[in-house]
């Protein structure tokens, strides 16, 4: 029962990543693309969680924490660079 649910959820997540990829393509401004990438990283988080549920292991949860933090750092850095050019002023 859970196995089928996890595969459905994985499929759904892949779909949502595809949607974000669409925004990545179409996105008129760079900020839209930045938003798209940020959302995809969050989806990846979810994917990892579902994967670890499926494999019944908690070893990926650490990578999820790392990814959460680093996606944030990258997004902030890019957002700041987009406007002010320099990041550490």
């Amino acid at each position: 029962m859970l196995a089928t649910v996890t595969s459905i959820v994985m499929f759904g997540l892949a779909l949502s990543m595809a949607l974000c990829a669409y925004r990545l393509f179409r996105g008129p401004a760079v900020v839209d693309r930045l938003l798209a990438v940020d959302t995809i990283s969050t989806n990846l988080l979810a994917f990892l969680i579902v994967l670890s549920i499926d494999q019944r292991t908690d070893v990926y949860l650490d990578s999820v924490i790392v990814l959460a933090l680093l996606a944030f750092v990258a997004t902030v850095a890019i957002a700041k660079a987009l406007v002010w050019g320099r990041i550490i002023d």
Partner: protein
Amino acid sequence: MRLSLLVIPILPMILAGLLPSAGRLGHRGLPLVCGAVASVTLLLALRVAAPAFSGHAVTATIPWAPATGLNLTFLVDGLSLLFLLLILGIGLLVIAFARFYLSPDENLPRFYASLMLFMAAMLGVVTAGNLLLLVVFWELTSISSFLLIGFWDRDPAARSGAYQSLIVTGIGGLALLAGVLVLGGAAGTFDIVALAARGAEIRALPEMPVALGLILVGAFTKSAQVPFHFWLPSAMAAPTPVSAYLHSATMVKAGIFLLARLWTIFAATELWFYAVTGFGAATMLVGGWGALRHTDLKRLLAYSTISQLGLITMLYGLGTREAALAATFHILNHASFKAALFMSAGIIDHEAGTRDFAQLGGLRRHLPRMTILVGIAAASMAGIPPLNGFMSKELFYEATLPAHMADSIGASLGASWPWLLPVVAVLGSTLTMAYCLRLVIGTFFGPEGPYPQHPHEPPAGMRAPVELLATFCVAVGFLPGLIAEPLIATATSAVVGAHVHPHLALWHGLNPALLMTLIGLSAGAALYAARRGSARRALPPRLGRTAGELYDVAIHGMMDSARALTSRYQTGRLRTYILTILGLLLVLAGWHAWHASWPGAGGAAPLPARMPMTAVPRGAMVITVLTIAGAASVCALYRHRWPSILALGLVGALVAIYFAWMSAPDLVLTQLLVESVTTILVVLVLYFLPRKTRDREPRLRLILDGAFALLVGVSASAVIYAILRRPFESISSYHIANSLEGAGGGNVVNVILVDFRGYDTLGEITVLSIAAIGVLALVQAGRRTT
């Protein structure tokens, strides 16, 4: 007691390491510390090497890299004892002299550190029992001499002199290493004592001439023999204490020490006789002639050193016991009077403000004591009785006489041209006499020159070392038996390998040697008188292009061709680099695929069993693959930078998912981290890149690049496919098995990284550090120019 032999070279080395940071010792404290360490090493050396006095050598061995035959073996016999005393004795005097000579605001810690490093290296050379170890210390002397010559690094002459000496002695070092390897390879051992014992067998080896030739090149470059002598005069740009220590008493004698060390092995060969004697004689004459030409005091002394070294080399070349005795005795004497002369030159320069003959002259009124000291030292060099120089010159004459040449390999030469060697000897000492007179009279007598500074007697401490050396010359002259004889006896017997009883005395009765001395001295005086006027005038015609100029031409030629080559393939455009790299990949993959047995051609095994993969719905994976392809194409197609960076970031994160799919948690973590740090780095760098990127690539180039990329993609996947088809048993089984008990760690990946393959990781983190420092330097350099 045995291992304390190791301490001899190591003690100054440790001090050399500590000194650069001991700045606050000040210009009084530093020489004191160095002097103390040098004297401690001297006392220790004497105590440890006591048995060497009575003739049997002291050895100690610590295995360092036994597989390659390189061990820390130390050998102290009579010969090393002589050199130990020389290096440490003259070293102490030079340190005392430098204490007064160098002004306090010089970079003294660096000076004394390099000086001590040099002393340690020389001690290592003279006490090394293993040829490879000797080469290690040999190279260290070249490096420390480079540091010392280039001490006043703002002075271009010092810099070029330092480069020249490093390149020449460096090449010599390489030749020596090659020779030693050939010799060691053929003989099977690098241990000097073992080699000496099998002298006859080695002389018969087919590789012997090659090995000996290369070793001689090494010795000749270090001891400034004829073709390689030009670096010594240009090394005079070094501070005087360095010239007095390195370029007169110790470093240039390293080559001669090597000749003495290998004397028992090679002395009885034809090649040795003709090469060593020939080059020695030629150097003696060229050096003598050179000394007459130059108007700079230190250059004159440099050329005189070259000529004296030529004399000693010639003596070792003759191959007879008397010649070896004369050579060893002359090493001692030469060190004493030459160091004294160099220090006096330093004092004259310090007091009168110049070393140029044109401005010197008539100094005897201002520096009376110096006149006497320099007089004694110069007289000893010229070989005027009753000083020590005269006695070793006498032995030199006797050694060249045909009667004494009987048992030498060159006896045939002695028979056919009996007069050749004596004439060369006399000619040599005539030149020596001439330049000694030029030295003494040019500086101290005659009309007073226009000195830039008003000279007055130097401080007592500065003159003390010269006085000490001068008294040594006189003392050895009058009481040779007491001071010199025991030391020279043990040293020569160590060189010759048999017990030698020298009878050093001033008076050997009326014999041809005395006659030759008289001729030499008078001819020298006549030569000086004939050319008296030229002391101050410009140089007489030179003997065609000197070796120095040839050296410069060679170096500049090499640099220019290197620059031309680099500019051709470093076009600075990223595209060419990528094309070359990927092109090479293409060639390799293509060639390999062509030769390797194609799958299905029966050669390769079927695809290995399915990878242990987690059950993931096909659909999800397909869409993820699509996303990755989409993101990758965004970077390829999009001209704007931002979308490409974002897409790159995305691709990295998605690849991490693959690792998760392949159940590799470590990799997921690492990939995510590396991915985001790289994205930040790219964003950082972006600010510095030019705003506008080229808008449209020419169509043809697009097609070409596209085709090329396709080809590379295909070949890369072909190679991977081939690898997958190749059956291989992976090493993981070993690691997994031993990971827990062997290293107490459950995580095999980390255990491998840090424990089993720790050495690789050490290499990797070193490379990382170098990269970081490189970036730091480049960025700061860049900032300075903008």
